[in-house]
């Protein structure tokens, strides 16, 4: 049953030179259909793909398996990138496109004024303290579009499309950048918003939705899931940078059942 693929053991150790098998191709096809999956789904998918093609499955080698795919995607300016969700603090894998060619621009699912509104939404989110923006603020910014004005109903429709296409998340009228958006856009955001981008004091990744130290001379940001993990079990939460009292409510550590087993 578990026939190790010879290819995996022959040749140089660099993933680049390792050929893909049908198990890799099946995995990639699922990623193309979904765009983003969490780590648990990725593990289940990995097992499914290996079983389907009688390939040897090393569950602890998921990242290596994905690296093989990514190395073959690289000439097409695509990649499967890992990142953390700001919502649940769990790792996710997203298929991202790094091409900046005519083709990708042409393939755009959005009109120019729609893209402009999305850019304005990003400006607002980047400019906010805790990485979210209200629908009211977005609707107001729609009045100042340079390209072509969007009606209120059009803006609302666009926002729901952006949520459906997994660019934005929405909760009670507040919009945040989705995990997939952050994973894919991170290089862009780091370049375009150099002065505004903040890193989480705990995990050192880019941070949008967060808690912020209220000491004006400090002001460090920490992801909500990182806050939960860092302050868990501490009697009096204090800022890890300036030691001031941490005045926010500490969220609970979220865990997946299957993760707590390991």
């Amino acid at each position: 049953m578990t026939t190790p693929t010879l290819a995996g053991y022959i040749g140089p150790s660099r993933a680049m030179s390792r050929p893909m098998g049908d198990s890799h191709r099946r995995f990639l096809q699922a990623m193309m259909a979904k765009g983003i999956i969490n780590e648990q789904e990725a593990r289940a998918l990995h097992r499914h793909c290996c079983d389907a093609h009688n390939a040897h499955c090393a569950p602890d080698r998921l990242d290596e398996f994905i690296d093989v795919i990514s190395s073959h995607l690289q000439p097409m300016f695509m990649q499967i990138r890992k990142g953390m969700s700001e919502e649940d603090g769990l790792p996710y894998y997203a298929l991202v496109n790094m091409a900046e060619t005519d083709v990708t621009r042409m393939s755009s699912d959005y009109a120019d004024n729609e893209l402009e509104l999305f850019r304005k939404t990003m400006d607002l989110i980047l400019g906010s303290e805790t990485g979210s923006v209200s629908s009211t603020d977005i609707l107001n910014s729609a009045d100042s579009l340079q390209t072509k004005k969007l009606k209120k109903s059009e803006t609302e429709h666009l926002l729901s499309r952006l949520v459906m296409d997994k660019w934005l998340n929405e909760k009670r009228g507040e919009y945040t950048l989705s995990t997939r958006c952050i994973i894919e856009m991170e290089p862009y955001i780091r370049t375009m918003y150099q002065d505004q981008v903040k890193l989480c004091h705990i995990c050192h990744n880019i941070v949008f939705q967060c808690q912020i130290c209220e000491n004006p001379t400090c002001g460090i940001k920490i992801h909500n899931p990182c806050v939960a993990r860092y302050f868990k079990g501490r009697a009096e939460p204090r800022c890890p940078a300036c030691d001031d009292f941490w005045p926010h409510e500490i969220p609970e550590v979220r865990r997946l059942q299957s993760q707590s087993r390991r």
Partner: protein
Amino acid sequence: MTQRKRLSQGKAASAPRRSETLMGEEEDDDIPFTQPSTSQVQKGLEKLTPAQVDQKTAEVVQYFLMKDQKKIPVRRADLVKHVVKEYRNIYPEIMKRTARTFEQVFGLKLVEIDFKNHVYILINKLETLEGAPVRSPSNPKMGLLFVILSVIFMKGGAVKETLVWNTLKKLRVDPGEKHEEFGDVKRLVTDEFVRQRYLEYVRIPHTEPLEHEFRWGQRAELEVSKIKILEFMGELHDRDPQSWSQQYKEATTPSSSSQPSTSSQR
């Protein structure tokens, strides 16, 4: 998949918005494209760096993937005009590499389905399996399509549309009503599936009032297993698939028209 907006400032904002019509950008005033000869290709390649050829191949791959998301066939004329452009002199080489990439990386096969107008689609080389832990959002539509293809196949290859609508109604999918999963069912079946080349929807000549019939489209012939359909029917009717002798014969002897024509270039 991943193709979509780029937020590169300025450039993206000034790029004209292209509308996607049925077959991509259908403009018949294309510059006529003549297939370059092997020696022309050779000469062309000598003038280019390998990186340039790789880059162009990547663009062609992306273009196909983007069209394939909506299962829209790609016309050679559009491909040359919008993507290949000044690399048209090495077009066969680029298509060869594109086809190789699809096979080796994506498990997809580039197939020319129309030799006159040079139209291409991607078909999946990997068998569809049950129990995939990650479900793709298009699955319910594919279920509906499978039912329609089954009806057509069991009735000998062509059925009047009324039969299809009646079958769907029995499954509580009314073409006259908006379905919560499929939306406008009639549009999905007669337009989307047809555009994607899963179905053919043709007028029956000399009918008054006008009548249409459904047949299998080229993509269905290439992608859908007739044996799977028979097995499905067998389960549904609790019957041995082999007892439909005519259909069983057709399902087990591949006709020449249903053979994938491996053409990466032409």
